[in-house]
């Protein structure tokens, strides 16, 4: 019975793909219509991109207007430098911490906001406030909060009797770095929460109902139903937050200015220093191009990690349209920690449970 059903689904999908492919071959008109928009996108994004590549292959001085072609010299000179390596380490640490903590916190917030309780609407609005604030404002605000002389945090802790003298939160390099990371998470986690919440709300309630009837607990349902359901949006969030974290600049600029000393000098700050303080746009461009490599690698790794089957489908030439996975697909791709035999009725997808 199950096999017959699955065969039918496969045949339908193949037919659908064939129809789609036939239409793609015939219908070029939409592409012509999109051409002006694509051209504008190319001019806005493509031209500066190409220009900055050319820039990174030169040694230039804008003030004296000298342009000397140096090939890959800028890259080769930057890579072994101690300040570059240190900035790379700090950037990696910052991205790892902020992505991991931001993801966990964002999902937790979304789960809470998805529950029914009085004042939920208000809380949903309030939660978005940190994300709605400009990072520069956030940086200045938290800079004041953390100030050792007049900061609100010390005031609160002193009033509560938790400390007996003010703490200079941003005085120590390591502490300053972690506090910037914390503020970054505070600023960005609501975005994760918003995206996850939107996906949670489109999740069919009967999935959880069925699991509840079968006696699955909250944790089991979270790992076996909710998390697999969120997989596509989690991929999107991971890619976005990783890139944003690696590129983070505003908070460092307003809260620490890369200091004390070089303690919070990350890649973006280093690139800014080279390009805008030393006016070495070529070296600055090279630094920031090096920055795009880990971004691309991570994006690729995430997609491999999250959608291995889709990748293999692509390799097999079956199209690779990203669709919300069926229950059977979700079940097959469930995380390793939940790979115990499920209830017998789950192994045979029912029509009513399929989207």
């Amino acid at each position, binding site marked *: 019975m199950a096999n017959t059903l699955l065969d039918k689904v496969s045949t339908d999908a193949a037919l659908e793909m064939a129809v789609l492919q036939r239409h793609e071959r015939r219908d070029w008109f939409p592409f012509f219509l999109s051409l002006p928009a694509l051209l504008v996108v190319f001019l806005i994004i493509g031209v500066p991109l190409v220009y900055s590549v050319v820039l990174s292959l030169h040694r230039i*001085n*804008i003030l004296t207007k000298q342009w000397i072609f140096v090939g890959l010299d800028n890259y080769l000179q930057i890579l072994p430098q101690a300040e570059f390596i240190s900035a790379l380490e700090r950037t990696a640490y910052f991205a790892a911490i902020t992505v991991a903590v931001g993801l966990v916190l964002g999902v937790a917030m979304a789960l809470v906001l998805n529950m029914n309780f009085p004042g939920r609407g208000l809380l949903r609005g309030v939660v978005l406030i940190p994300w709605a604030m400009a990072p*520069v404002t956030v940086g200045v605000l938290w800079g004041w909060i953390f100030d*050792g002389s007049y900061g609100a945090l010390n005031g609160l802790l002193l009033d509560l009797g938790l400390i007996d003298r003010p703490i200079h939160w941003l005085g120590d390099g390591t502490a300053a770095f972690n506090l910037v990371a914390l503020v970054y998470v505070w600023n960005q986690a609501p975005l994760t929460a918003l995206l996850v919440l939107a996906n949670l709300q489109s999740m069919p309630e009967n999935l959880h109902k069925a699991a509840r009837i079968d006696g699955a607990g909250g944790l089991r349902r979270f790992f076996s139903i909710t998390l697999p359901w969120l997989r596509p949006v989690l991929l999107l969030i991971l890619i976005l937050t990783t890139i944003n974290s690696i590129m983070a600049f505003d908070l460092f600029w307003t809260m620490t200015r890369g*200091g*004390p000393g*070089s303690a919070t000098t990350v890649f973006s700050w280093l690139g800014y220093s080279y390009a*805008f*303080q030393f*006016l070495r746009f070529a070296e600055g461009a090279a630094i920031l191009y090096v920055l795009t490599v880990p971004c691309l690698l991570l994006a690729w790794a995430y997609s491999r990690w999250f959608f291995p089957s889709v990748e293999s489908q692509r390799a097999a030439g079956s199209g690779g349209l990203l669709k919300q996975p069926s229950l059977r697909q979700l079940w097959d791709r469930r995380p390793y920690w939940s790979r115990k035999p499920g209830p017998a009725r789950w192994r045979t997808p029912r029509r009513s449970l399929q989207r």
Partner: protein
Amino acid sequence: MHFIGWQYNPQIVSENVDTFKKLYDENVEYELVPGEYHAIAETKLMAGQHIDMMYSEEDRIVRWKKAGWTRTLDGLPGLDAIKASMYPVNVKDMSLPTGGLGGLPYYTGFNSFVANEKHLDAAKLQPPSTWEEFLDQCRKLKRDKVAEFPYISAWGRQWASLSWSLFAIWYSEGAKVFGANFDPVFDEPFKKVLEMHRTIYRERIIPPDVFTQQGESVPNFATGQHTYMVVHDYDQKVFNTPATSHIAGAARNFIMPGKTRSTFVWTAVYQMGAKPVDEMRVWNLMQFFGGKAKDGQYHVARRWALEFGLGTPYKEVIEDPDVQKSFSVWKDMKIATQQLETATTRDVAKAMWFPEWDWFMMGEVQDYIRGQGSTDELVDKLQKKAAEVKALYPE
């Protein structure tokens, strides 16, 4: 006409623009450039944005002129009379080494040595005359629990912060920093000041978060927790204003400690774009903002002086009884005048490469103060950097 400026009371600048528009029946577009003003302005200029008049510190006068973005004011009507109405030290500050006035003054300031008299009274101290005495006093203030962190200054990596504070103390101790042909003179007084800064940080005479404080540490001194501060002279108005300070009336200026008792004096300017939309119209705009308007009034300089305590190179404005009276409320004018007489201009700022060395220096000095490397290693790095950036801009 297009005019750009940095983020210091932009609402007042806007109002001044409106006054100009009415007075001259003109049309001016004022653009506020927030954040790292000079870096952003340079990017705009490089990209070819048309700017008729722009704020700038003195260290950009030569740099922007050589890059072809600005022009000198030579040949414009009434320039000699304008020069004659200013203090010679400021005229020198605004002039190019080759002659020619680079701009008209926005304001002039110097780093002042300000003390919280409440602390001095509590510890029964007189202000120090040497930096050694200053250190001893700070230790005593700390030991006697008068102040946990007796000293504060702007030590952030920002154009008006650590560099200005350091140069003021270097000059007060007799360090030249840069000599003839702008070659580095990193001598004993230069090193001594660096070592003193390290000691101040190590002994926790200064708050450990000084490098990351907001607002050039001015709000921190206004809390009344600190005894001494090397600070822009006009900030003393903030300290002595009850609405913005816990020590209003108790912040007093003294002559800088050190061997020469000198300090660092600067003049910020309005520069004219290399290709003004109309030379005479822009000259009118410059004179209105950086001098006397056609009605014979110093509208802008006088307003900055009265409302914000900003100094001006114009003798007529400074000697105005209203301005004298206003300044006397929050600073000791006799001491301020005496300090200005011995103040030193930072001539090296006229070197095209200086802003790049300056930015590098601030980062390295912060690391050094926090305990990284020796004084000789730091001096070596600073010397190498000076040679490197000099080579980028052959004369």
